[in-house]
């Protein structure tokens, strides 16, 4: 575990190398390990099955969605306009829901922008906490951590009212850009102010950087901002990546905020879009509704996250493990 937790990017000399006694359970013999493999395989099938079922169902015609075959009897592309029925009505995702491509695009840019903003602002705050000593530092940091405990429901209503008020204000002053309810600003603007877990995570990383690096940079004529930019940020890259992908995932998942703030279906993100499709086309359950496009929508919502995980797996695992160690 030790090399997995050692932050990459920090020179090995910076982290004290302590010879450690072996940890974890005593390894099993080769034979005993081999006996566990069938069990792991069965479990894997259980865990993967919903994904496989989903992808397969999204490629079936309307009346075969619930036939539970892994390989579709008839393969049908439900993601475009078609297929068309006898009188030429479309039954594909885009055919029935022309806004769907917008949803994908909206989700993509809101998640990316939000994740980038929250990572940068959290890093700024984290640097403030990690590098400087100042009055109220510990108190303020405790306050940062305390905000993690607060249920979102407590602040949800006043924050909505603030946006509502902002919206009315900008409507009356036409030279201002229109923010507020039924715009996408409430979904990403709060990311500009940092977020407790990421501040904590990045601060831990900054604390691991030897102070001499900063002193040397000071001697070279760096000010605090260039020091942050040239020394701290590059060395904390793994933590920044963790913060970015975690927030990307959180924003991609976000359902409640779009549900609260958005009414114009062109502005929707995928989770809210999928919910709308489900409500509009999902009646009846067993094959009466247009379940083939609901399945296609679900795949569209899920697969990008699976790809994200495939690329950044290491960072996800490390980020989660950090979360656990904090406790």
């Amino acid at each position: 575990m030790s090399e997995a937790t050692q932050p990459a990017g920090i020179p090995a000399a910076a982290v004290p190398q302590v010879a450690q006694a072996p940890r974890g359970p005593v390894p099993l013999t080769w034979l005993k390990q081999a006996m566990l493999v069938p069990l792991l395989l069965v479990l894997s099938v259980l865990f993967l099955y919903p994904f496989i079922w989903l992808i397969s169902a999204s490629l079936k015609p309307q009346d075969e969605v619930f036939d539970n075959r892994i390989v579709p009897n008839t393969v049908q592309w439900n993601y475009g306009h078609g297929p068309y029925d006898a009188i030429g009505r479309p039954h594909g995702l885009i055919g029935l829901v022309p806004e769907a491509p917008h949803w994908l695009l909206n989700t993509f840019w809101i998640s990316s922008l939000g994740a980038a903003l929250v990572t940068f602002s959290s890093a700024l705050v984290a640097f403030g906490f990690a590098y400087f000593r100042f009055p109220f530092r510990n108190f303020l940091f405790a306050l940062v951590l305390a905000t993690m405990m607060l249920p979102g429901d407590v602040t949800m209503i006043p924050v909505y009212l603030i946006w509502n008020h902002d919206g009315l204000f900008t409507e009356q002053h036409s030279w201002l850009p229109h923010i507020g309810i039924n715009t996408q600003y409430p979904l990403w603007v709060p990311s500009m102010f940092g977020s407790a877990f990421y501040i904590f995570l990045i601060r831990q990383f900054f604390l691991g950087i030897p102070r001499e690096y900063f002193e040397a940079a000071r001697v070279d004529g760096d000010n605090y901002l260039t020091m942050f930019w040239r020394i701290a940020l590059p060395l904390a890259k793994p933590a920044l990546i963790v913060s970015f992908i975690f927030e990307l995932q959180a924003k991609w998942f976000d359902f409640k905020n779009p549900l609260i703030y958005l009414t114009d279906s062109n502005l929707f993100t995928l989770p809210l879009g999928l919910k709308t499709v489900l409500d509009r086309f999902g009646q009846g359950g067993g094959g009466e509704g247009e379940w083939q496009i609901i399945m296609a929508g679900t795949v569209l919502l899920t697969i990008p996250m699976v790809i994200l995980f495939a690329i950044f797996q290491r960072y996800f695992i490390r980020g989660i493990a950090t979360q656990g160690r904090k406790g």
Partner: protein
Amino acid sequence: MASVAVNQAPGSPSRARRWLSGFRKRETWIAYLFLLPWFFGFLALTAGPMVASAYLSLTNYGVEQIAGFEPTKVVGLDHYHELLHDPKITLALKNTLIFTVMLVPAKMLVALGLAMLLLRVSRKLAGVFRTIFYLPEMAPKVAVGVLVLTLFNGQEGIVNRGLEAIGIQGPFWTTDPNWIKPSLVIMTVWACGGTMVIYLAALAGVPQHLYEAAAIDGASAWRRFRDITLPMISPALFFTFIILTIAGFQTFDEAFTAFFGAGSTGAEDPDAALFYSIYLFRQAFRFFDMGYAAAMAWLLFAIIIAVTLVQILVSRRLVFYQGGQR
């Protein structure tokens, strides 16, 4: 100047002055500048709204007040009084509690089982299976809600087909009030990869010599698990216990997706899936009864704090921290 201060003996009267002198240093104000984004967000999106929400919970703020047709009136503790007598609140609390009580142990058990399995095979193999078991965490909650509806469909869902294959007549999961919560629990436990990874890290940190010593003493596998593994990973178990409980109380996405029409106001929705957050959402954003919803939010917060405190107190004697009490 700084070195003079350092040379002073601690506890001398200048300690307070030295603390105060912090405000005269340029560095202090630069540090505050770095904190500015958080500070602004804290005031505008956390502290301010908390105060506002507390105030709203004491008023009749609702749809007429938002539109400005009628003035906002302070109604005192009326909403809190009302909360106690609202049968829907009782129902929502009961649902949420039952769901959480089912979910948390189930998720912890499955995650711990998987983690222990993974630690017993070679690193390479464990890496592959860890990826597979973690993958469900990447399924958005709305997608999980859709999966509840499809996989647990009473007539044609794969779950009931599977049960049929072994001779069990499966229930109508998504329509039978008794089985709605279990289907949500099962689908939520499916996404236990994060918890599993936390346990993996904890399990991998248990010193091996403890197991070796126990094996020499002839301790059974169960004894080793109970007397070494469990105490050594108890901080991780405790952490996930609290986090999962808090999350359980706030469950919204999956249940709302599966069982509540986005525009509906409730008459046709199943009572069995009416969780507290869903009822709160509906009060706030369907009926725009903001005052009442704010009171609901504070009740939820109070319950979460109370439950967490009880958990901390109870587990104080159960959790073992390596390297001494914290």
